[in-house]
């Protein structure tokens, strides 16, 4: 955490760079470094499926479009091995590897304008003033698209998931207890792929139910710690727990579970979050943008439980 003097110095440097012809790129770079760090830290989509940087060379050209596309291979299925008596030959099968296309689009923040002289009065970090709301907006859009795709795969409790055809969205009665949590973690390994849950996503109200766990449920001093200090644990039940305040996307008393990202799909970053800043006389205009593409190629690695 920078001190007030350090922030003051940072702000003066930024103003100087914005003011000096040829130095504006340094100012933009300073804001971009700050923005990208915040983007990495704050979005749950990025934490569950970390973005993979993709370069122009790795894109796959298409006949019908000049827009960026990446073709991803899926592991081909194969028939099961069988026991046979002697003097019998195996059946043949031809390997056909399925693939899917990951398409890209752009996320862009609204374009903000500000008189630079009004920025002079800020005592907080100017980089924060410029980028904070935009980062929140961009992450909300990223996380919203991610949850929309999950909800498309797992539309209704008790119904088969799109793609896998297995029930991976269940309602479990009895509230959030040690027993119901462990039952929730069985849903994913029960599918044909037998994936284990690596990451759990809940909102900040749901996680408070865990504070109610007694010593007999949570185990010894851990129960004491969370009742004294609140939830600070990120690893629990051998899973990484991500807690979000986005209750509009992750409903209360719902638990979303994810296998390792390599089993789920791809999240490509073609253009990392970039802040466009232009100063014309005393008016500053700026907006953030990024180009990403993502798809779930395998839906067995997703599960959801609503605790009732």
């Amino acid at each position, binding site marked *: 955490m920078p001190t007030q003097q350090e922030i003051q110095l940072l702000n003066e440097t930024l103003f100087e760079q914005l003011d000096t012809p040829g130095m504006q790129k340094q100012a933009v770079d300073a804001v971009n470094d700050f923005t990208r760090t915040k983007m990495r830290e704050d979005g749950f989509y990025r934490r569950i499926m970390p973005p993979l940087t993709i370069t122009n060379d790795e894109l796959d050209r298409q006949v*019908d479009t000049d827009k960026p596309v990446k073709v991803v291979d899926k592991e081909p299925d194969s028939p099961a091995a069988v026991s046979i008596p002697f003097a019998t030959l195996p059946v043949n099968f031809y390997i056909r590897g399925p693939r*899917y296309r990951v398409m890209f*689009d752009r996320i862009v923040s609204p374009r903000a304008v500000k008189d630079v002289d009004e920025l002079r009065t800020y005592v907080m970090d100017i980089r924060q003033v410029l980028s904070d709301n935009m980062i929140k907006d961009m992450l909300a859009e990223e996380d919203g698209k991610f949850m929309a795709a999950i909800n498309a795969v797992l539309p209704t409790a008790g119904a088969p998931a799109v793609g896998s055809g297995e029930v991976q969205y269940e309602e479990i009665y009895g509230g959030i207890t040690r027993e119901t949590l462990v039952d929730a973690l069985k849903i994913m390994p029960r599918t044909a792929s037998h994936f284990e849950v690596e990451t759990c996503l809940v909102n900040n109200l749901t996680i408070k139910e865990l504070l109610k766990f007694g010593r007999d449920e949570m185990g010894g001093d851990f129960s004491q710690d969370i009742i004294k200090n609140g939830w600070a644990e990120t690893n629990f039940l051998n899973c990484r727990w991500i807690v979000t305040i986005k209750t509009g996307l992750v409903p209360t008393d719902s638990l979303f579970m994810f296998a390792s990202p390599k089993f789920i799909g791809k999240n490509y970053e073609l253009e990392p979050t970039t802040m466009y800043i232009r100063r014309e006389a005393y008016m500053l205009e700026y907006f953030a943008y990024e180009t990403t593409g993502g798809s779930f190629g395998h839906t067995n690695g997703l599960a959801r439980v609503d605790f009732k």
Partner: protein
Amino acid sequence: MSAPDLPFEHAIDIKKGWFDMASLDYSAKLGTVGYTLPRGRVVHLEHVNGKEVFLPGVRKTDVAIFLLNGANDADVSNDGTTASGKFVQQAISPSGKMSGVVATGGYEIDSTEFDSSRSYVAGDLLTAPTGAGSGAASTGGVLTNASVVQFVAPVVGVVSSGKHVNHNGVSTLSFWSVWLPGSAS
């Protein structure tokens, strides 16, 4: 495998008025349409179940929007199933948003999406009929000068240099975007 579509077979070229940062464009997802809506078609904005969606053509006082993207564009949609319904993938992005330029902006547009069976002269008023069912695939949001009466049918443009074959060998219609509302009732 279906035949590939060339990027200019269905498209608008904006001859004047775009791109700059002040250009008036608009983005929304497509509503329920029973055919693949190509680039260049005219759409209007409508609220369906509380959400903004584009639907083909214009009615009454709808403001026309000329689509820069088609429903099948790689930055709009990524089909998740095969023709027989087998799962391929579930897209996280693109999100289904399409964008277009709004007729109230000052543009001269060259569009492939017009009724090429008709004759056009400079000054002709243009409209674009609605139609989201599969039967309207060749008419929904397609520009025409047929039966355009001021303040009755919504006007979306006025013909400029008119019908011609462009440098890609595709028949196009040049017009200025104009918005004149039709009858409100």
